[in-house]
């Protein structure tokens, strides 16, 4: 059986290596992906279309906004599915297992984390808010924000973190993020454009059509950030305790 599994692996390997012969060399500017009119259009016109210096954010939140919206929905659904799978499952009573030990939160660890968490959270806001100008964006900021809460849960215990970020908030915040994203899209639709055509927002805000896209992207990224923060923490809280939400790692 074990030997049998090498057959598909080797077949795939030989086929892929044979195909690698025809791929462009490392860093070649003539690679088909780099020469394609789509990516050249993004590089050449992002500045004129949206006034956003970071092309990745512009492509993510504007040109491919529909994709990113359902991306966020996927993250939200995954969080809800984990909640549904693990909630009310398994051990109701707390039976102590042989590898579980009672330990007080360590003094050095907790005091270090006390200093670190505000810095991490401010950095998360920075990454989120500067997603257009420098590398960053909603997903990255959201993950950093969620990580700060996970750090609290790791250094004290899960209950301490859950006081600061209750689990029913995560559902609400996750839904709110998607609502914000879809709301901006719907608003631009009601103003006469297509779904997620942010330039129509210039009709109600005192900015040019390009700057309307610039600012709508920030709104969209905030929505993404909210959902990702909530779901990251919810995933950790549920997975580390088998859904009991007591006595985590």
């Amino acid at each position, binding site marked *: 059986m074990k030997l049998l599994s090498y057959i598909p*692996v080797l077949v795939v390997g030989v086929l892929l290596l044979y195909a690698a012969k025809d791929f462009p060399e490392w860093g070649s500017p003539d690679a088909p992906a*780099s020469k394609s009119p789509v990516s050249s259009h*993004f590089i050449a016109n992002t500045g*004129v279309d949206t006034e*956003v*210096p970071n092309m990745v954010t512009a492509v993510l939140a504007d040109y491919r906004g529909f994709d990113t919206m359902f991306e966020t929905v996927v993250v939200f659904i*995954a969080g809800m599915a984990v909640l549904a799978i693990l909630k009310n*499952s398994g051990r109701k009573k707390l039976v102590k297992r042989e590898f579980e030990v009672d330990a007080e939160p360590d003094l050095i660890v907790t005091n270090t984390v006390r200093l670190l968490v505000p810095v991490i959270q401010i950095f998360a806001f920075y990454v989120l808010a500067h997603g257009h100008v*420098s590398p960053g964006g909603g997903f990255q900021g959201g993950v950093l924000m969620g990580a700060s809460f996970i750090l609290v849960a790791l250094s004290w215990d899960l209950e301490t973190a859950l006081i600061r970020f209750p689990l029913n908030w995560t559902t609400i915040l996750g839904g709110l993020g998607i609502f914000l994203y879809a709301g901006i899209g719907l608003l631009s639709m009601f103003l006469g454009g297509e779904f997620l055509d942010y330039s129509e927002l210039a009709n109600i805000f005192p900015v040019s059509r390009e700057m309307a896209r610039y600012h709508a992207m920030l709104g969209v990224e905030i929505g993404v950030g909210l959902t990702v923060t909530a779901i990251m923490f919810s995933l950790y809280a549920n997975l580390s305790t088998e859904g009991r939400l007591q006595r985590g790692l």
Partner: protein
Amino acid sequence: MFEDGTIINELLIERLNYFIYVVLLLIGLHAMIAKKNLIKKLIGMSIFQTAIILFYVSIGVKEGSTIPVYLPEHDPHGSHSVPSDTNETSHFDHGPVILDSSLVKGYANPLPHVLMLTAIVVGVATLGLALALCQRIYQGYGTIEEDELLAKMESREIRSKTLSVQIPKDQKLPKKDELKKEKSRSVSKSKTLSASKPKPKGKK
């Protein structure tokens, strides 16, 4: 051995990056097929994913290009002061401009970065969901080893089958000792199977 035109030269020197991705991908594929432990299968899936992400990101690379964020001289919001080599600072003040094809070559391809950003996020979501399913399986069966899991599922199936066979026999009112025999057989079967394996901890 490493002269121009040989296969080894092609793979290991000119296209070493693709070789590394293929090897990573095969490690992941082999782990997913051959490993019996479900968590090890998930680790294999993550390695597989990493190979594909690396492949996409490397496609976006252009020699001598910078990251896909506009340099000060192309920044749509103009008005930047940048210190240059000579002591004077060069000042850029202009609106957004469409870049021509020679300038486009100076920026890495943003599209693979965007696609992989979404792929990473979906990867985290699927990994979380898969881990939750693994925990649920462990609660129900007490193991996440594939072969032990199959044995346990089979024994459960046998138990439920013997129960469903008994019902029509009951209607015909069979002899009591026959029924007892059947019952004791199924009980002893489940007993031996459950005794040989550690007891599932999460079972209600």
